[in-house]
Structures are given as structure tokens and as C-alpha cells.
């Protein structure tokens, strides 16, 4: 039995950037929760240590992406970043209730795009407000209170976004394979990312779709 054919999805640089950023996010979310939520603070204690880890991980957070983006090795990541940043007509078809199955999505679906845009932007905002909180003596009290306000609410947004991202990834093991090993089963690409499949292979993706009833065939495409 031959293994099912696969399509390359994320190169080593992209996966390294993803997993190191994800690790830092995880550390930041848990140490952040320990600094913020009374019951966890009590459980963990060691406030000074937790704070040091949180600040250290926070300062490192932008590095994996920045390193992954520069130079020759960052080509695939740069291309994907461009794809993630834009909604096209297929995304609008996907977002429209009822026509989702007709969308001939490119490499990413709109949810992935929004998630990436939010988390990427959150890195910048959390870093900025985090710097105010860490080096507080340089800022006025109003600024500090405002920065706390932003840091708290965006942190809640990050928890929602990251938990949602993990949940959806676990529900779609084929997609998860792409980020774990670099490639996805070709039938997954054909079915869920037909636009991307066609661009990568040069073959039409339609033939895998269930045959449509003969008379209505002209309308959908």
C-alpha cells in the first residue's frame, strides 16, 4: 500500500516560526494568568519569578517571526503573510451563509486570516503596553492605567483567539499535519482549499467534488 499523496504546505522556517511563537504565547498566557487571576496567583506564588519569565518571554515574542521573515529563507513565510493579509472574492463567498461550500478558497480560509491578523497585531500592542507596565516610572499614572486597560482586554481576546485556533486545529487533523510535518493529504487540499490546490498542482480541483445533478450544472461554477 502506498501512502496517500501529499502537498507541501509549510516549509521548515514557517513551522519553526509558528511553533516558537506558539510556545512563547503559551508561556505568556499562563504566566499572565498567574499574575492576573487571584486564585492562580495564590496557587503559583513566586510572583517575582513569574513576572521575570513573563517579561522575558514578552520581549522575545516578536523575534521568531522577524527572523523567519528576513532573508532568503523567509520567502515562503513572506508569501503566506501576504496571502493571510488579504480577503478575496472567494473569501467573501465563504463568509456568506449558505454559499460556503461553493467557495474555491486559496491557501487560507477567512477565519485563519482574521486569527493571524489579530494575533500578529496583538504582539505589537501587548509589547507596547507591556513596556509601559514594566518601565512604569517613565510614564504618567493615566498612561499606566490606560496601558493596563488595553493589556488586560487584549489578553482576554488572545485567550479566546488562541483557544479557538487550537480547538479548530484539533478538529481537523489533516490541516494540523501541515503545521506539524509540513505537508497535507492531497485530497484535503483538493476539497478544502481548491484554489490553492489548483495553483500548486495545475490540475482542476473540481473532479473530486461529488457529481452534481445534470441539469443544474451550468449555474454553480
Amino acid at each position, binding site marked *: 500500500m502506498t501512502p496517500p*499523496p*501529499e*502537498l*507541501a504546505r509549510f516549509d521548515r522556517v514557517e513551522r519553526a516560526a509558528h511553533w516558537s511563537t506558539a510556545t512563547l504565547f503559551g508561556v505568556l498566557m499562563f504566566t499572565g494568568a498567574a499574575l*492576573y*487571576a*487571584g486564585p492562580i*496567583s*495564590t496557587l503559583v*506564588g*513566586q*510572583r*517575582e*519569578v513569574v513576572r521575570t519569565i513573563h517579561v522575558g518571554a514578552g520581549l522575545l515574542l516578536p523575534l521568531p517571526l522577524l527572523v523567519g521573515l528576513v532573508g532568503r529563507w523567509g520567502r515562503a513565510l513572506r508569501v503566506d503573510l501576504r496571502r*493571510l*493579509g*488579504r*480577503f*478575496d*472574492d*472567494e473569501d467573501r463567498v465563504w463568509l456568506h451563509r449558505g454559499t460556503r461550500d461553493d467557495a*474555491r478558497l*486559496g491557501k487560507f480560509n*477567512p477565519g485563519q*486570516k*482574521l486569527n*493571524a*491578523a*489579530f494575533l*500578529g*497585531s*496583538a504582539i*505589537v*500592542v501587548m509589547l507596547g*503596553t507591556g513596556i509601559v507596565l514594566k518601565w512604569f*516610572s517613565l510614564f*504618567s*499614572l*493615566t498612561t*499606566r*492605567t*490606560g*496601558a*493596563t*486597560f*488595553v493589556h*488586560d*482586554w*487584549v489578553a*482576554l481576546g488572545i485567550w479566546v483567539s488562541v483557544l479557538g485556533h487550537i480547538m479548530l486545529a484539533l478538529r481537523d487533523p489533516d490541516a494540523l499535519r501541515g503545521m506539524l510535518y509540513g*505537508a497535507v493529504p*492531497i485530497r484535503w487540499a483538493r476539497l478544502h482549499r*481548491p*484554489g490553492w490546490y*489548483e*495553483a*500548486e*498542482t*495545475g490540475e*482542476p480541483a473540481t473532479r473530486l467534488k461529488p457529481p452534481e445533478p445534470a441539469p443544474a450544472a451550468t449555474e454553480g461554477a
Partner: protein
Amino acid sequence: MKRHRSADRTGVQPSEASVTSETAVGRRVFLGLLGFGAAGIVFGSSVQGWLERNVGPVLAKDPTGLLALLPIGRFRIYSVTSNLPDRSRSAYRLTVSGLVDRKTVLTFADLAAMPKTHLARDFQCVTGWRVPGVRWAGVRLRDVLDRAGVRPEAGAVRFVSFDGTYTESLTVAQARRSDVLVAYEMEGEALSSEHGGPARLYIAPMYGYKSLKWLETIELTRQVEPGYWEQRGYDVNGWVGHSNHRSDDPTA
């Protein structure tokens, strides 16, 4: 394992190249969040105040306690040492010393036997958060001072926490106010160790950093000695709304 590499892209770019209109959603999200961040830094202080006055009381009634995770009208547990101090009521001792007629050591039972005072006031932190209408109970500090007898040359009171690091102080006149407590109950329950139990100071008219947690020693001195945060820039007279360049509504 056979993989289709995307080597030959020249001829085939059917759907991705023929896209008609694109929206730069990523840029919008980025600018939007950056805008929220900037606006939040400028106006967050007032928005937080509004939320705490208007939404805080509603959240406080949430029976599940889950809404307590929202950053509105909730206590944040600040401790300057690495471990949360923990001492049982039975092991607790409160020492009153310094310029007093008789050095006095009180057990928790001694405190509990003294006249009990209830106070319901907002708790305002100098970093901005405020918890509305917290119900405190305990002994008036002035009653504790009178048990030891304050000598006339004493001008100030210094407090030491059993966390081993934190200190605070008040003038004797401030310490004698009727809204200054040695508190051992909060919201009708025994004061938990994260909130400073078994007993802490509660100084209603001043910012939270004045209300020293894990109270162990009360020492009468001639002059006020700046406490832990005051050596790091906070005002010694920490009146809510009239110190630390802040303009919060008074809490007493």
C-alpha cells in the same frame, strides 16, 4: 512519500492570479487594534472608572463567579515577595511596641474579643482599579493602640507585615480616625491569606498601598517613616483623589 512540489508555477495560476478584488483585511485589523491600543492608553483610565462604577456592581452579583475574570471591579493580588504569606488564626500574633506604655502582644482571639466595627467602602488602587462597596469588618486601630497606651512623644505609627518586606506608616492623628481598621473579615468571611489575612490594615480614605496586608507589628515612633512603596515614589499621605497625581473620587 510522494509530494507535488510547486516547482512549475509559470503556466498555471488559475484562481489566485485571476482574483478580481482584494481587501487588505490584515492591515485593517492591524490598524484597528493599534487604534484601540492608542485610544485605550489615552482614555482607558476614564473608561475603566466608568466600567467600575456602572458594570462592576452588576458583575459582583454574578453567581457563577466566572465574570470575575473580566478586568472590571475586581481585586488584583499584589504581593512584593515571592511567596504568598500564610499564617493561621491560631498562630497569629499582633505586637504593639515602641513608644507605648506597655508592649502588648495580641492573639487573634484577643482581637476578636474587642468591639467589632463594620465598614463598606470602595477599594481604590493607585494603579487604577477600584472595587466598589467592599464590606470590611474588624477592630478600630485606635482601640488597639489604646490597649498598649500611646506615649505623648509618639507622633507616628509604623506597620510591619509578616511577608518580611512590606512596611507602612501613618501619623497618630490619621491612625486614630474611626475609618481605620485592623480588618479580619472581608465580604462577611474570614480574610483569606491572598487578601492579607488573618488580619491587615484597612485605611478607608487612602489608596490601597497604605492598607498593609499580613499585619504583624505596630510600632509607635516619633516621626513618620516612609513605607515600602513610598521609598519608591508614592506619596506618604495617600489620600484617594488628592495624592499621587490622581483625581479619583474619594472613598471616604
